[in-house]
């Protein structure tokens, strides 16, 4: 994530164009004119996103392709800093004009409210990507202080902070040690077998905990202010299939791609071939949304392929089982994590070659000293137990509302939990001297 004051022009431009386009689409008297305004909105928003995020990648890819045919092409790269939150607010504003075009919502006449919708601070930088239909009406509501709502928001923020600082950032230390690849040295190549496996396993949890922590803080902050944001995660590592997983992971983005890419492409209504192609297109685009590199595209493609495989498996099933046993469910969730974790190698590795190296070497038997990967023995054990605790808590949360369980306890227990959580953030958090600067992972998108 990066910030230049002049980049504020981008969000202002995006806001003004979509505000104007929304009004113009509604006023347009013909379908053709409506389409024209929609295209203007798409062109400006995606144009900005393309320029700032994909221009260099696009040109370098062309150079590489032409290079294979011995054609020399020296692209003009812009080397621009990626503006804060551009992927998120671009999608948020796009959904507004597209929804107006399809008649799902009416445009709003108040520029200030629309600007607040685009730049609503709790979720501006890394989502959840909100829909106009859900968020804009809330700006018209009178906000009054509600004890339960504010408390709930604060607790969500506290939980998010705890998960981020105590667990995710400590996992990051090991992951970054193993996957490190800088100009001077590719440290990844120094690792094999167990190191690669544990780093990938830790990254799977780091990504979940880091991003869900941010989402919880964003949702909690909005709740304190009196706004309700849609939830972004629903215990994804207890998903029993890849399709189930994508209903639980980064929900606001998944549903965005479902509503504005997959369904407009025809979804599953135009025959099996088209259905599968639509899945692949949607997931590759979702991958590329995350970052301008072939690794992200491959990550998306791999998840698309998993889903296609699932389509075939589901088709073979004659009947649906009534209720899976705990063991069966656990095994299924482990299988999903295995597939998902494998795909994340592309997500985390810095180059395609690095990802291939991981796949080639992860199964090589070798028992590296896991306590020499950036974490001390006690840190390693601590963080490992934390992962297990989170996994168990997620399972309990599937069945019961943990917030309600806590709220039902007496004040001494509740206060003890709050105080211990705060002190754990302070004293067990991975921050300070000799610990790197740990931004939220999704800030880079």
């Amino acid at each position, binding site marked *: 994530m990066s910030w230049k004051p002049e980049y504020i022009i981008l969000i202002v431009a995006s806001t003004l164009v979509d505000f104007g386009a929304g009004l113009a689409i509604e006023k347009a008297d013909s379908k053709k004119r409506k389409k024209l305004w929609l295209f203007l909105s798409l062109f400006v928003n995606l144009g900005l996103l393309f320029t700032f995020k994909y221009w260099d990648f696009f040109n370098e890819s062309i150079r590489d392709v032409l290079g294979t045919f011995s054609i020399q092409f020296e692209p003009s790269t812009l080397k621009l800093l990626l503006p804060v939150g551009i992927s998120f607010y671009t999608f948020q504003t796009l959904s507004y004009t597209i929804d107006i075009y399809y008649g799902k919502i009416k445009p709003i006449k108040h520029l200030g409210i629309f600007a607040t919708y685009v730049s609503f601070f709790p979720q501006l930088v890394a989502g959840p990507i909100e829909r106009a239909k859900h968020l804009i009406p809330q700006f018209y509501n009178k906000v009054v202080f509600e004890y339960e709502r504010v*408390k709930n928001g604060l607790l969500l923020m506290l939980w998010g902070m705890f998960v981020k600082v105590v667990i995710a950032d400590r996992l990051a230390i090991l992951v970054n040690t193993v996957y490190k690849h800088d100009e001077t040295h590719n440290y990844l190549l120094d690792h094999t077998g167990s190191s690669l496996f544990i780093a990938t396993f830790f990254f799977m949890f780091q990504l979940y905990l880091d991003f869900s922590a941010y989402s919880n803080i964003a949702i909690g902050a909005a709740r304190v202010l009196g706004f309700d944001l849609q939830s972004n995660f629903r215990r994804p590592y207890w998903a029993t299939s890849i399709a189930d997983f994508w209903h639980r992971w980064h929900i606001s983005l998944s549903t965005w791609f479902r509503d504005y890419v997959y369904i407009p492409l025809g979804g599953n209504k135009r025959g099996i071939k088209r259905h599968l192609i639509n899945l692949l297109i949607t997931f590759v685009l979702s991958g590329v949304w995350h970052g301008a590199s072939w690794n992200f595209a491959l990550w998306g493609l791999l998840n698309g392929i998993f889903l296609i495989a699932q389509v075939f498996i589901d088709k073979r099933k004659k009947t649906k089982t009534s209720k899976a046993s705990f063991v069966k469910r656990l095994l299924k969730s482990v299988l999903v994590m295995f597939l998902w974790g494998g795909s994340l190698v592309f997500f985390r590795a810095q180059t395609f070659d690095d990802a291939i190296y991981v796949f080639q070497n992860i199964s090589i038997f070798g028992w590296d000293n896991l306590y020499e990967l950036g*974490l*001390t023995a*006690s840190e390693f054990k601590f963080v490992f137990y934390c992962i297990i605790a989170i996994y168990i808590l997620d399972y309990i949360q599937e069945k019961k509302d943990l917030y309600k369980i806590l709220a039902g306890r007496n004040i001494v227990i509740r206060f003890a939990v709050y*105080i211990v959580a*705060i002190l754990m953030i302070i004293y067990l958090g*991975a921050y*300070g*001297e000799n610990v790197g600067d740990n931004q939220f992972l999704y800030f880079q998108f």
Partner: protein
Amino acid sequence: MKKMLIKIAVIMIVVLGTIYYLDTSKLFSFDEDHVEKRWDGLYKFSSENEVDLLILGNSKTYCGINPKTMSSRLGANTFVLATPNGSLTQSYYNLREALTVCKPKMVAIEVSTLNSTTMADKEGSGKSFLYKDFSARRNIYEKLITTPQWFDLEEYAFAWSTSIRNHNFLFTNTEQIEKNREKAKNIVVNNKLYLGRYVRFTSGIQDSILSKYKTDGPSVNGDSLTISNEQLNSLQLLIDLLKENNIQPVFFTIPVYKDHIENYDTRYNILTELIEDKYGYELFDFQQFYQEDMLKTDCFENTYGNQHMTYLGSLVVTYNLADSIQNSPNSIGLPNRKGDQLWHNIFYGEENYFYNNPMIKGSKVLFVQNDLIAPTCSIKEIGIVQEEKFKLIMAKVPKSCISESEKEDFQVQLIVDVKMKGKAQRIQVKLPYNKYHKPGEYYIYSMPVQDIEFVQILQTNIVNTKLTAPSN
């Protein structure tokens, strides 16, 4: 809303109380924090005595100035309030706090603290030392004033709380926590006064570093030494503060080995323009006026990079600074407390005391004989002084006996009846010239010994070894 605020307040009180408890219990502190000892020393010293000369600077200063030797030479109470990696900005804010507990007559400022860095530049060990310096200070108001000047907002918690700053000990240094816990159980009160001295280096530059100077050249170029605006502003603030408090400033430079730096003239010119021309104060620059005959390789740390003085080097510089202060025509004159009991209690017999003061038999002086007649001259005192780790045989020869240029050629030779390991013997003792003492009225000839007891000096002689040495 009120209900929630009360609950949040209760939670915060418990959390802050826990942090306060952990900070004061020192569970997360480092061992032997000399920065903390220095501040504790200043507070203790100031509560019992007056500080006459306060010396500000960085690690070069506390390695390069010996406050005990300085005090024994001047007779004035000296305290070194220097901090590792310290800058002048740091010195200014430290002085503010120091002035709340003492009112020195003179403040000496070492000018390598006037450099290109800013507080925002500090990182790594420099930042760690800054935190330690801040933590060791006690005046809450001054710390509040200092906080925004030294730290960024996200560093405030680290600055104010040792336990938060070192919280990673819980995973990375549990042995230290355990040690601190044990220490807290068995508190040992150390009444020894700490005067800000930190003896770190005892052996000098070795051949490997000397050859590196030859092959790679000096490690510092005076042309590239600049002073940041932040430091210049701090210098102005510091001078204003000293004026307000009617304190005389003195500026000085701790030297580095002659081959360690090149183009020092450039740096010297900048410093003189600033300190002498702009502000009208004296600069005692021991780099520009490098004493080749005294500052040999054994005076400097054996390093090619950031160089400090050894114990011997610090004696040379301490005497130079003491004499420069004393002999300066602009000096306001520091009090001579040699007759005060309080001064005597602190400095009597301490490092190099008897070089500068008469030996009187007692717990520190194991043997002394005065006015011994040698063939060419009368030796003022010959004695044995009990130092911390050895005994020192010392002879004081009046300067009138030997010419300045020949003093190192001479030896004091004695025939003495002694007891060594309980056995009576008659031996000859040869005392070479002590070049780490800057002569006052006497030249010092001395030699460290481990186990010896003088019974009687039978014969005394002052011999020019150059003249008596056999020629080839």
